């Protein structure tokens, strides 16, 4: 009896290892997609499949969730099936990608610069599969051996500008803060844009605005680190926050909400990204929104048309990929007007000129 039980137990553990070792996976068709015909009528009878990998959770209330929902929205539009594998460790990037390749997925969607090496390696080994790298480098497609990689590159500087303008307008203490997840090029670009725009707005508005040094949590899941970073930065006088750290940002917002509650009024603010998260937390006064869905949709179209790969698709305010989300009532009407005016300058290319 003991031997049989031991055997069953061992089998269960081995299956757990096999099923769960690489992260937490889920798969399924996208909403009413999957079997629905493509909206653009380009169907050739084949049901295309897209898979997303992500090192944060797709329910993190930030980056992972927004990127996942972008894939779902695009898949619903084009009638694709979807799957995802989230909360995967860095060591499992490549294995997760090739697992989907082995299952004949047509498009692998990797939302983050940190997946570049794993994507390039898999793209070389699977020349017939398309790889879309969100926030990939502009030169990444050229490095792919089989021209089957496309970079989707929202302009990190403009992302930072959209948040930095609002931060510069709203700060009372003259100190703004940025929390990063990992030190990657896009995060550094967003921070640089955030700092330069906040400081510029300060000059325009007759006040001194400075950004605290960027901090990095080292991962995207540790919401407790977000809490501690936010508390430490508020102690330093920061009163407007922006971040690029997924669940860590959620932790920061919790700490900000608690500080505001203790103070009896909302005096410390947060700007969210990459979706419109106004209302998720009391402290959120606006969002920088990236239409990742449109970018993923362009990749799907290219795969269906057989024209995918070898290019970098830039996302800017000018082409509609980047925008500012709804603004909270906590932002006074005059500042909302100024915010819109500065955003118009970004649109027409005259901002900070």
């Amino acid at each position, binding site marked *: 009896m003991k031997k049989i*039980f031991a055997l069953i137990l061992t089998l269960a553990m081995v299956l757990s290892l096999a099923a769960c070792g690489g992260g937490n996976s889920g798969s399924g068709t996208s909403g009413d997609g999957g079997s629905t015909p493509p909206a653009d009528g380009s169907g050739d009878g084949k049901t295309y499949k897209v898979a997303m990998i992500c090192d944060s959770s797709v329910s993190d209330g930030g980056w992972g969730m927004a990127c996942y929902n972008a894939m779902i929205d695009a898949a619903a539009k084009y009638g694709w099936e979807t799957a995802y594998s989230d909360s995967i460790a860095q060591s499992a990037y490549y294995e997760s990608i090739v697992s989907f390749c082995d299952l004949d997925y047509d498009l692998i969607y990797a939302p983050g610069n940190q997946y570049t090496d794993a994507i390039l390696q898999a793209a070389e080994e699977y020349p017939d599969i398309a790889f879309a790298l969100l926030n990939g480098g502009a030169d990444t497609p050229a490095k792919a051996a089989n021209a089957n990689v496309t970079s989707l590159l929202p302009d990190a500087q403009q992302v930072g500008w959209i948040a930095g303008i609002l931060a510069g307008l709203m700060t009372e203490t003259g100190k703004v803060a940025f929390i990063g997840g990992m030190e990657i090029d896009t995060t550094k670009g967003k921070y640089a844009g955030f700092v330069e725009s906040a400081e510029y707005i300060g000059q325009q508005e007759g006040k001194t605005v400075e950004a605290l040094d960027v901090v990095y949590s080292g991962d995207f899941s540790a919401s407790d680190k977000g809490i501690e970073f936010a508390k430490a930065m508020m102690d330093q006088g920061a009163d407007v926050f922006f971040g690029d750290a997924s669940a860590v940002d959620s932790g920061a917002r919790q700490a900000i909400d608690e500080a505001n509650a203790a103070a009896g009024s909302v005096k410390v603010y947060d700007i969210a990204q990459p979706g419109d998260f106004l209302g998720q937390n009391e402290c959120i006064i606006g969002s920088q929104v990236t239409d990742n869905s449109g970018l993923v949709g362009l990749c799907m179209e290219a795969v269906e048309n057989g024209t995918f790969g070898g290019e970098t698709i830039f996302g800017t305010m000018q082409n509609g990929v980047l925008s500012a989300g709804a603004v909270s009532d906590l932002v006074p009407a005059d500042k909302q007007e100024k915010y819109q005016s500065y955003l118009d300058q970004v649109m027409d290319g005259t901002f900070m000129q």
Partner: protein
Amino acid sequence: MDSAFITNLILASVRMATPLIFLSLAELYSQRAGLVHIGLEGLAAIGSLAGFLVSLITGNPLLGVLAGAAVGILVNMIYAYATINLCAEQIVYGMAINIFAPALAAFIYRVYFGAGSELVQVGLMTTLSGLLGIASDNFLVRLLLDQTPMVYLAYSLVIFTAVYFNKTKSGLNYKAVGEYPKAAATLGISVVGVKYAASVICGALAGIGGAYLTTCYSTTYTDGNVAGRGFIALAAVIFGRWSAGGVLLACLFFGFCDALQIRLQVGSYGIPYQFFQMIPYIATVVVLTVIGMKKAGPKGVGKPYLREER
């Protein structure tokens, strides 16, 4: 470095040390009965989810903590049966728990809430100062009163554990099982019974440690939110020389290092952030190197107990 920096650093250290205390005590109770348990990370992960879900459904964080304890016990019974009855390798089953339990937690969360759903947030346990209606910026008030009941429970458990292991007959019998189970058996001590009791206590404390994260610390649940604390707890027990007081000091030290690296990052002004992130790990390596030489752990830890074996 002003006084505000130091007081806030101490407060952050206490916040960050509390879940470690629960997890380290879980490991201490397990190892004192001869069971080395490297699966705390997994037990805390499933406890964290159970605490979050029950707190969300009932609106009562205390019930969430109890649920975390119950689920921790339940999952740890797999480890207990395999290692106590089947005499399986403890490290292997601990590792299996580490892989199985977080994946199960992620699966349950996804089934319950769906992928890409709105960020779900729960209310946290009220602090003692909140219950008493005291609002003050005084450091001592914040340190001693602005804490949830779980913090007081953690420190009370440390005192209880120190007394239990050193001043009671039952505690000495318990330790005897971890030192030399065959000798303990000749004295009429139920070795298997003590090992199961240890597994129940370990599962409960690890589950509470995980539930603390989602009922007292963070309003959200995220996959991976235990963030290596299960392994740090393992180091803390060695660091603390398998004593309750030592474990408490070790947890406070680890909590302090983590809080320090966060606060130093914020005020770094040009020093690479990786330097500060290394501090807790360098401290661990240094301290374990210095004090880890002297073997002080239970002699029977990690070894299966076979009653019929000579």
